[in-house]
């Protein structure tokens, strides 16, 4: 059974999350029919969690890209029809996985700015809860007391906040589409239907 340690979660937050927008851009430029970028990214994270040890990974960005690449290759091998164009695109991915990381410095410099933007873009109550919890460092109980909410409501707001930030960070900035469907279960179902139609 696989469990996720705090150490690995911290490693993911430092060495994978910052490269996610680039990874997504890279994957979506070479769309393989029937494969969703979101699913590939989730599977990439899963592979990085089941690794026994990550301390020997010197260049996490290259490792992340190579992992996504091998997942892609596996999917293509399993599919029956592979066009010449698809194979060509996959080869391109292989070449790009070794590219250096010129923006590493900038990632460090701008990350707090991006976090501030993402938090500011959260809808009202979610943002209030998030600020008390993360900026002021209050416990869930203290937040509940100070905003006169139940603890379970505070937890639901935190969950929504995480969900929205997951969207924001995956696109390297603001994901307005996800913000607008934050509370819209109906909207999300509509999207789900669209997804299934596409399949």
């Amino acid at each position, binding site marked *: 059974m696989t469990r996720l340690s705090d*150490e690995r979660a911290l490693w993911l937050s430092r060495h994978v999350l910052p490269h996610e927008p680039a990874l997504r851009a890279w994957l979506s430029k070479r769309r393989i029919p029937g494969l969703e970028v979101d699913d590939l990214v989730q599977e990439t994270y899963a592979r990085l969690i089941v690794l026994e040890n990550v301390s020997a990974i010197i260049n996490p960005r290259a490792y992340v890209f190579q992992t996504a690449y091998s997942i892609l290759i596996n999917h293509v091998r399993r599919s029956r029809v592979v066009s010449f164009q698809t194979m060509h695109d996959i080869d391109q991915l292989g070449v790009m996985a070794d590219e250096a990381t010129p923006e590493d410095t900038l990632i460090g410099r701008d990350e707090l700015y991006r976090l501030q933007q993402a938090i500011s873009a959260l809808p009202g109550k979610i943002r209030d809860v998030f600020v008390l919890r993360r900026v002021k460092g209050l416990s869930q109980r203290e937040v509940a007391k100070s905003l006169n909410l139940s603890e379970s409501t505070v937890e639901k707001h935190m969950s929504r906040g995480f969900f929205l930030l997951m969207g924001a960070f995956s696109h390297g900035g603001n994901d307005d589409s996800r913000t607008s469907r934050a509370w819209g279960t109906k909207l*999300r179902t509509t999207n789900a239907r669209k997804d299934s139609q596409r399949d």
Partner: protein
Amino acid sequence: MPGKTASEIDAQAADWAARIDRAPLTETEQAALDAWLAEDMRHLGAYGRARAVAIHSERAAALGSGFRPSAPRPSRRGFLAGGAGMAASLAVATTGGLMYATRGEAYATHIGELKVVPLSDGSVVSLNTQSRIRVLYSHDKREIHLEDGEALFDVARDARPFVVRAGETKVLADATAFTVRHLDDQPVQVAVKRGAVSVTAGDKAPVRLLANMRAVETTPERIAVASVTPAEIDRGLAWREQRIAFEGETLGDAASEFRRYSDTRIVIDDPAIAREPITGLFQANDPVGFSQAVAASFGLKADVGDGEVRLHRAKPPT
């Protein structure tokens, strides 16, 4: 793909991340999580992303009391004004040469606080708990005095040299990222995350430190250097996500490390307990939670009192 969309899975993963963010999972909750993760590889991946985002968001603590949630979406300048009163101090700092003759601009954090200080040249200083710096920028040099505590310096390229002074230690850097630790009664330490620096102390000849090297001791008598793994450098920076990482340190050392971040003291009277090694990642501002986790794994008792938590051997049942 059949079944749930990635977004629906993300929402469930975020629920779990929020649950674990509140407090450690109960056995029942852990079992439910294990079952959910085992259903689909994508669940595990989404959960990993959710936890990564939850941990990354801990860095928001550095936005400080000056961050107003009701404010409209901040501009670039808004970020620079992030810390309390930072707008005013930055306005002064950017006048550069005029500051030269004065004592410079000071920034400090109190116990348990984090602060990120953007400087006029694009460099960024992250201050850990109970730390104090003074920024002295002029037309021909960039100098920072780390008077107390610990800081990460993310240095922007510039024609002027970048110098950090901590006691008798002097660190000369180019475009690099490195930490300096200047704690009471301890030799100053320097660790390089990226790039290279030169370290001197007193009249000692400069010693070159490259990425993944640490000067474990810098005094006018001795500069002791060790190579470390990137993972060790990472562990030393866990404070940026409000965490403390231990890898075989004694419980006694862990207790004094926690003391830096919180007014609640961890008291260990039994020297045999204080010598026990500890490994793991812990919430820096929660010495009580840490003590309870330690008590559970070492078969000890943690008594929470006023301003302290006492770790001792559980009395055998009579």
